[in-house]
């Protein structure tokens, strides 16, 4: 047991205060708190990767001694160095050493321009506030988006069920639309001609396709009353395997989705797909079929005098003010990172380009409360990129990741 006189105790306290004060004054510029341990020794400094030992005075003395740049975290001396912006109130981050004292404010706390002519303000608090507001907004959007997503999934499923049932019926029956096949063949030839016409700039892909839906509908609608009935289906649709076998009444009813008639709109969204594409339901609409509702929708955006139209899972087009419409690609596939399997759509084989190849569009999906086309760009000739926002792109995982924790 050692007696400590009050007087001595006072000295100990003074010494401690002095020591802390000393450490503070020798604060190493440009390092994060997790790196402080490397700079604790006061006599010599070991380059972090271990290549060299130098006197401690040579740390941050504006001369690069260590190959790894670790002796100059606070100056621009090392080509491979980095400077830590503490950025209190915002997000801390590293900048390359070459941005220290280069006359440009990089850290929001202005710490990188401690010896330059730049008059940097500490903007971290404002940035932080803005960021927090932004993140809060994002979270609200995500919440709303996820709710909307549920509704849209249900809507889509409803459509899917109808489609699916019809598809089932069609598959079971293995039907074919004899006359339609012939028509389609004709239409394909027409398409070739139209494409040529398009180059001359006098026709429209969109119109043509609509008219084919209508013409098929009209073909089935023998009495032209605007709806297809059981009789009419029986008259035009045949079973594939039994050459001449006509559909039974029950089979026809099933094809009409359980009713005894079908109008053009319903036809367009159900039977038409099945009769023409057959495989439309095979498209991957996401794990919860959440993208299904986009199937029959189109979204437009005007950019620099062009109208861009994205019809998901179908096609992308561009229409100039002069009125010519050009295909920027037809539905190709999902192309995405392993993390986000459904974040990008690729549309390929659009209108051919002057120097070879054809137009294509990559659509990036982001979470939002509305479904809308946000932007279109053409960074290289014939290669388009679109930002497309929709609630169904909202992922609950995003919510779990702690965005707040960084602030």
């Amino acid at each position, binding site marked *: 047991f050692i007696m400590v006189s009050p007087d001595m105790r006072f000295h100990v306290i003074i010494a401690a205060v002095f020591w802390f004060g000393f450490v503070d004054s020798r604060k190493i510029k440009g390092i994060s708190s997790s790196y402080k341990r490397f700079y604790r020794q006061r006599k010599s400094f070991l380059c972090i990767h271990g290549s060299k030992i130098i006197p401690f005075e040579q740390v941050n003395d504006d001369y690069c001694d260590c190959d790894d740049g670790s002796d100059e975290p606070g100056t621009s001396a090392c080509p491979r160095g980095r400077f830590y912006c503490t950025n209190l109130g915002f997000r801390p981050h590293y900048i390359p050493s070459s941005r220290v004292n280069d006359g440009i404010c990089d850290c929001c706390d202005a710490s990188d321009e401690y010896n330059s002519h730049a008059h940097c303000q500490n903007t971290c608090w404002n940035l932080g506030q803005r960021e927090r507001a932004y993140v809060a907004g994002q979270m609200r959007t995500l919440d709303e988006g996820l709710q909307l997503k549920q509704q849209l999934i249900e809507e889509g499923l409803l459509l899917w069920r109808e489609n699916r049932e019809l598809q089932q019926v069609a598959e079971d029956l293995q039907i074919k639309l004899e006359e339609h096949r012939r028509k389609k063949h004709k239409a394909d030839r027409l398409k070739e001609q139209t494409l040529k016409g398009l180059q001359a700039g006098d026709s429209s892909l969109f119109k043509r396709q609509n008219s084919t839906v209508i013409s098929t509908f009209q073909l089935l609608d023998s009495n032209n009353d605007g709806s297809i009935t059981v009789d009419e289906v029986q008259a035009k649709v045949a079973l594939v395997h039994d050459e001449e076998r006509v559909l039974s009444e029950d089979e026809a009813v099933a094809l009409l989705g359980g009713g005894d008639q079908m109008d053009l709109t319903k036809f367009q969204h159900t039977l038409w797909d099945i009769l023409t594409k057959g495989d439309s339901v095979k498209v991957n609409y996401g794990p919860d079929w959440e993208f299904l509702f986009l199937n029959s929708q189109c979204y437009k955006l005007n950019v620099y005098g062009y109208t861009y139209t994205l019809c998901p899972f179908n096609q992308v087009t561009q229409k100039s003010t002069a009125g010519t419409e050009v295909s920027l690609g037809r539905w190709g596939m999902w192309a995405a990172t392993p993390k986000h399997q459904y974040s990008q759509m690729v549309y390929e084989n659009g209108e051919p380009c002057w120097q070879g190849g054809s137009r294509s569009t990559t659509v990036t999906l982001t979470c939002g409360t509305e479904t809308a086309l946000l932007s279109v760009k053409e*960074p290289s000739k014939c290669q388009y990129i679109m930002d497309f926002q929709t609630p169904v792109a909202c992922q609950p995982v995003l919510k779990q990741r702690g965005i707040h924790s960084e602030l």
Partner: protein
Amino acid sequence: MAPVLMLWLVMSLSGTWAVDKGNFKTCDQSAFCKRQRALKPGESPYRALLETMELTSTRLTLQLINDNNKVHLLLELYRLQGNITRVKINELKPLKPRYEVPDVLIREPSTEPLSLLSQDENGVVLSLGSESQRVIVSARPFRLDIMEGRDVLMSLNSRGLLAFEQLRMRKDTPLFSIHILTQWMISIFKAKEEEEKVEDGMWEETFKSHSDSKPNGPSAISLDFSLPGVEHVYGIPEHADTLRLKTTDNGDPYRLYNLDVFQYELYNPMALYGAVPVMLAHNAQRTTGIFWLNAAETWVDISSNTTVFGKMLDYVQGSSETPQTDVRWISESGIIDVFIMLGPTPKDVFSQYASLTGTQSFPPEAAVGYHQCRWNYNDQEDVTSVDAGFDEHNIPYDYIWLDIEHTDGKRYFTWDPHKFATPKEMLQGLMDKKRKMVAIVDPHIKVDSNYKIHNEIRNRAFYIKNKDGGDYEGWCWPGSAGYPDFTRADMRDWWASMFAYDQYEGSMENLYTWNDMNEPSVFNGPEVTMHKDAVHGAWEHRDVHNLYGFYVQMATAQGLIRRSGGVERPFVLTRAFFAGSQRYGAVWTGDNAAEWDHLKISIPMCLSLGLVGISFCGADVGGFFKSPSTELLVRWYQTGAYQPFFRAHAHLDTPRREPWLFGPENTALIREAVRQRYTLLPYWYQQFYHSHRTGQPIMRPLWVEYPQDPATFALDDEFLIGRDLLVHPVTEEGARGVTAYLPGKDEVWFDVHTFQKHNGAQNLYIPVTISSIPVFQRGGSIIPRKSRVRRSSTCMMQDPYTLYVALNPQRTAEGELYIDDGHTFNYEKKEFIHRKLFFANNMLSSENLAPDAQFSTRSWFERIVILGASKPSKVTLKTADGQESQLEFDFDASMSVLTLRKPSMNAGLDWNVMLQ
């Protein structure tokens, strides 16, 4: 039926292998070239009339007569300061004045007295000054021989190819006026003596669907030059060909006629975008130059007695014949005005040429950095994101460029109202990062009555006129376009005023200019250019064609200077050029392609330009047309980083190729190439200063520094930057190694990356990987670098230097350091630091080369690296105030590299460092 079929076959054949060439004339398709080339060497019909000789203190004149047609010519002979002889030949009494090129010479050259040494009925001998140099004028036939001692340096008309198509009246010209009538009578009088044949193409000429009305008839000129002892000639750019010019006996002559050539072919003599009618002749004893001052379409024939059917014969010593190169120049109009630069060293020729046409303009330092261009960055957002991409990937750049799409409907001086709605905001954003922008301003002006520029030019009658007197209109990017008459000083003055900040809306001081299409390019014109019978005041376009681009850049540079009140240096890039264009900015080699051969040809193309004064040269990095493989793109960055003008550019139809789009490894390779450029900026900038002061090329063929070493004479896959850096870029696909020739019998070269020392006068095989850029520093040199590579050159202004001292076998070295503010003309007011650094007797010191100059810098020396050193026991720094201090150092014995740590003295002061 048969003839029709034959015709069809011929047409389809030519269609398959001459698609591009078919748009441009061969000599045979150019009437005057065909006419002149038909004239073969022989006895000249010209005779000097010695009795007409007049010798004043500044010149000799005498008349020449063509004995065939009795037309008199007037010969003027001048001895110019600096060992230059000028020979002018014009018609004694031309029907109307013939065009003499103005504005290219920086001043009327100063003359020196010619003295008569001897004279008899065969000729006269004149002294060209001290060194036993004289010119012999022989009378019958007329020829000129320039001699030194007993050696003939150059002979003119020795092959009898002097030709001068005198202006004449058309035989069937209707009479309009008394004036013409008198002239007509004179011509009848003359015609009695003449027996002139009227050939096709003399009074009218057609090419494809274009007709040239030729109201003045034939007016071509031609002259031959013989160069005894010469086997190597260079220059006469712009051609996509080897550095050493080839003989032209078996094909077309080299053509000089500024043309917009779509997807040009390599290794042929076809004309390209620019023309500098200057040729250099070199052998181990002497270098001379010929400057043919003529702006009309010109063809240059080269033949050699050591080359037969295009193959070089080994010249056997003791053979009866000395090697000789014969050159012949043919131009469509104007006069013969030729400057014979007598060297004798390459440097003398460069100084002589610079004394006539001026030196390379001194660019803002930032322009020596890296330029990022593309046709097109689509909108402001695109610009912002590319700018951010450079920061994200930590690649420096100084200028981002906007091609034609940035304008409002190809109306230059305007911005697309949607895509570039707030240009000042964009420019301010770049300025905040200490970066700059270049926007294109082409000389074709959209014919549109709602376009201010067009209205002003039309109202002021500044447009070039067509042959019928209306404004000339041609088809170019905006559709129908007019072409301002840049040959008019008042037009250029007005054009320059359009760059004022209040005229050029949306412009700011960090916006600079690019003049493209200034050959001029006319999509629907003959050979994609202007009709030769278009009218520039008193002259035809025929007379001034090759000058047009020169004037466009001149006026634009003037505009950029004026907008700053004469304070700031301009930066203007041009595609078309002429002799003297070096005074106004940079040139690039036009629309090349993403092919390995195009990468290779960038070296001889820029070397050839450098030889004729235009140092600020570069090729589109990556290639303009087509899309480069990643390997080609990387190699191109590595090559471009070591060429004077360093800009990546790409065609609208190619995929994006910003440096970070090819995976992290390639991004790193490109980053490293660009960083090497930036570390060397102090050396580059000093080279530009030197070139501006002296006219010496920056990018040099090896023979310029090693003129006596024949092994260097034809090298064009490697080059020097200044004297001290030798670069042999890798330009072969999949290369595992390159063989570089290191010149200099008693020299050593240090690999700048490994510091390994190599002896000179050897072919060195260098194994390479994809990251290799073989660069060597000459032993005996000192090169300043800045090792802190930042976002842009401007961010590096105040940074410290590292000196690389490479010792020669004598253990000496010297170099220079030049520092100024980097962007103003204040250097002309002696605001700069220029120091000589030298190492001898184990002491490195800095000496003021310009004691009368004043400038201060914050820059200091952070490191001195001495290559080829031995280990000292101590190193002492002594500064100007007499203070001495010991320096820490590190010695690498394996490479003999001594590194002095942080000497810290200011870059502008006197000091020395002693090794003991």
